[in-house]
């Protein structure tokens, strides 16, 4: 059969290309220049790359089409997620710089890996074919596996990275099997289909409901694979360990990035491609959502390690986002986007504070280390309070608005009982956020620590930015919600 040369238009993946190119350049430069005392140029270069990707993503805003023979979707949805991810990447790079300097372990690999991870996540957002979804998934997963194990001196870090890696690849295998079944069921893995060939649903409609069973099974497997990435129960066992073991900046990046990337794929897959079959996937996803909300909130209550606590809270938040996904209406999709963006900023800020406070070797992360923090470091404690309240969903923070919009979407679709479950679980969750406040405000510091932790300029900046965003988006979120809604408006096929 004669191959047709695809017309190459790269606007769709320009951000990814920019990132990968920067990462390669960065690694080579670092390797060539070798060990220097102050390698400021690495984070600078990384920031430039991320800036470029933001530029390209904004360029693509407004167009809605498929590129690279139907493999990549260029639409507002993708652009929104990509820009958000780039912002997360910037914060992570700056945070990581201070962290690495403190740990005396600055290596180009860190920045390179972050860039690669961001690129993979971005690809996730634009993927219009399950093949691309798979490649994107692996790209950022592999980078994250290594980043989790980046605390060279800590065995815990590497063991958690090992566990994360094994469980991750395990879930990937199921995801892959799911793709294979889709392929077998309908003979196509394309989410939309078009002049380049039939899409999943179109060819499914063509073949008729004969092998719906196989397709449903495949759907279940795909949800397993992506559910793992967004830390949904029952695919969450890796989360607490990975979060605890990873360097704090990386933990924040994982929480923010892999969640939005995984949900971007889920939203495109379920709310767009498989929308006609929503009555088939809803029961499964609702089950997952309720489990996730309940398990995440309940298990967090007993945690003593701040990072583990935030890990369970991130599980619970995955459940909240699911309510928006289940609603599967415009408000639901845009709400989920808004939720993921604001949650990412907030959680990055929280982990920035954790990273600053954790001290040398990133060890001081138990609640005991936070006793009376407010009277020792009022500003840091105040920022952390703000972030925790936002995670708990208290008004005048972005977290409240986010909850409001996703639950609102669910109520609008008639799933008001799901919203009630969400509210009850958020009340449970509030308990352990309050627990942290109790420790910080209402307990006395027991031991004076040897050297007072100092927050580097970049970390301070990151915390400040995150806090500002959390407040501003809690008071005046109109523009962002508007952008998110426009993004879903340009939702290819949506």
């Amino acid at each position: 059969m004669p191959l047709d040369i695809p017309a190459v238009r790269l606007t769709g993946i320009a951000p990814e290309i920019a990132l990968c190119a920067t990462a390669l350049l960065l690694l080579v430069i670092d390797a060539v220049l070798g060990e220097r005392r102050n390698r400021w140029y690495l984070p600078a270069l990384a920031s430039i790359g991320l800036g470029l990707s933001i530029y390209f993503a904004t360029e693509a805003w407004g167009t809605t089409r498929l590129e690279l023979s139907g493999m990549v979707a260029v639409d507002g949805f993708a652009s929104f997620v990509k820009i958000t991810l780039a912002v997360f990447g910037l914060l992570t790079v700056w945070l990581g710089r201070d962290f690495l300097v403190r740990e005396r372990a600055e290596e180009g690999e860190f920045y390179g890996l972050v860039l690669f991870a961001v690129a993979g996540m971005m690809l996730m957002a634009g993927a219009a074919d399950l093949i691309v979804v798979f490649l994107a998934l692996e790209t950022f997963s592999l980078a994250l596996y290594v980043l989790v194990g980046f605390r060279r001196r800590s065995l815990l870090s590497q063991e958690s990275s090992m566990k994360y890696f094994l469980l991750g690849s395990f879930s990937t295998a199921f995801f892959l099997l799911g793709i294979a079944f889709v392929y077998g069921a309908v003979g196509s893995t394309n989410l939309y289909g078009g002049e380049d060939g039939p899409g999943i649903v179109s060819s499914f409609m063509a073949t008729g409901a004969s092998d719906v069973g196989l397709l449903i099974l495949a759907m279940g497997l795909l949800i397993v694979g992506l559910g793992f990435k967004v830390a949904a129960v029952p695919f969450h066992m890796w989360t607490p360990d990975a979060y605890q073991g990873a360097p704090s900046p990386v933990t924040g990046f994982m929480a923010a990035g892999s969640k939005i990337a995984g949900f971007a794929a889920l939203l495109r897959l379920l709310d767009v491609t498989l929308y006609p079959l929503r009555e088939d996937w809803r029961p499964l996803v609702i089950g997952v959502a309720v489990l996730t909300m309940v398990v995440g909130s309940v298990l967090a209550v007993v945690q003593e390690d701040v990072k583990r606590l935030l890990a369970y809270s991130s599980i619970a938040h995955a459940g909240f986002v699911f309510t928006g996904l289940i609603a599967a209406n415009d408000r639901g999709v845009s709400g989920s986007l808004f939720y993921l963006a604001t949650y990412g900023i907030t959680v990055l800020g929280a982990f920035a504070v954790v990273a600053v406070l954790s001290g040398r070797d990133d060890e001081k992360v138990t609640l005991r280390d936070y006793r009376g923090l407010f009277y020792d470091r009022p500003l840091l404690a105040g920022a952390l309070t703000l972030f925790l309240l936002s995670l708990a969903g208290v008004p005048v923070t972005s977290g409240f608005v986010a909850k409001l919009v996703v639950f609102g979407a669910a109520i609008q679709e008639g799933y008001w009982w799901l919203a009630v479950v969400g509210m009850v679980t958020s009340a449970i969750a509030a308990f352990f956020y309050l627990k942290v406040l109790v420790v910080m405000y209402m307990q006395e510091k027991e031991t004076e620590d040897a050297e007072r932790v100092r927050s580097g300029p970049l970390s301070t900046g990151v915390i400040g930015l995150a806090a500002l965003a959390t407040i501003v988006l809690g008071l005046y979120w109109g523009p962002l919600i508007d952008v998110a809604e426009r993004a879903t408006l340009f939702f290819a096929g949506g």
Partner: protein
Amino acid sequence: MPISYFLVLSALLFSIGVYGVLARRHAVLVLLSIELMLNAVNINLVAFSALLEKAGLDGQVFALFVIAVAAAEVGVGLAIVILIYRNSQDTDVGELSLMKW
């Protein structure tokens, strides 16, 4: 040649992989089992692509990607194993305390 042969073969391979992951405690063995699962999927893909008239070449292309990605996974996995092996003083690196979930 009926496609079901291939499907059964791959199903068996996949199950063996799952069994390995669940039953083995040694990291490297778990890694091997995961590779087995991936290859089972490959058989699926190639079989579909070759024997279903509605399916095009995509399956085989996809298989190539899977092979490459699998290799990358092995690389990362072994790297982590070595890192742990260098850090921890005990020699049976597979017995990760965290692996007991």
